[in-house]
């Protein structure tokens, strides 16, 4: 029997790896991939608790999280495309026209 803590610790490890990817990488696509990794780790936590408590609410929430992640990925990638068309770069250090 796998204890519940194993799932939670795995989820925490994946979340921290994703967070480090968001903070440390300069490529906008890699940042988006790390955000998806974080969302997936939260999905894992929700499903683990849903199986532990025998309540389907957790898995319904995972359904909604996946929907929102899909919508956010589509719009985010459209923004990246529009940015690349303007500035010919996706290095987020060079996208600083709103800096004061």
């Amino acid at each position: 029997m796998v204890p519940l803590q194993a799932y939670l610790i795995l989820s925490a490890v994946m979340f921290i790896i994703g967070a480090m990817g968001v903070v440390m990488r300069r490529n906008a696509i890699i940042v988006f991939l790390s955000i998806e990794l974080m969302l997936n780790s939260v999905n894992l936590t929700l499903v683990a608790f849903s199986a532990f408590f025998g309540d389907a609410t957790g898995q319904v929430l995972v359904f909604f999280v996946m929907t929102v992640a899909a919508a956010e990925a589509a719009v985010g990638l459209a923004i990246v495309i529009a940015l690349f068309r303007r500035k010919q770069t996706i290095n987020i250090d060079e996208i600083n026209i709103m800096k004061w």
Partner: protein
Amino acid sequence: MTLEQILFYIFAAGGVVSALLVVTRRNPIVSAICLIVNFFCLAGIYLTLHAQFIAVIQILVYAGAIMVLFVFVIMLLNLGDERRLREGFTWKKVVAGGFGFGVLMELIYIFMVQTGMSSIEMERATNVGTVEAIGRMLFTRFLFPFEVTSLLLIAAIVGAIVLAKKKLD
């Protein structure tokens, strides 16, 4: 060591290794492929939790739609060799890594110190992961969020098209 435990540890190791590869590779296509591997490992872990619907939806939606969109965009942007960024070693990354490691240790400490959390009882889990159980809850208690997500998807579609199309001057 039951088969369930073996499968969980194999998929967990695969998930962690592919996650590390996602954030460290320099080529974004390699990162996207590693993330697809990670999604498949996660689907395997969902199956060990008897969450059949979520496992299949994970492969269909995440690995099959979102990652395909990512791969299309990476190929569309056509970042050649000269575009690969020089992401060198900075002290900011060391500090960020230190903070991340600290938060991870804190989380692990919180999870391990908890007493009374026993193993997952699979009888409860088996009833709750079926399409019928999720559908019943989705269309009765979560009906309003379900309808709202359709609005959200329409907004996302329109937004993505407007943002990404060429301006017709």
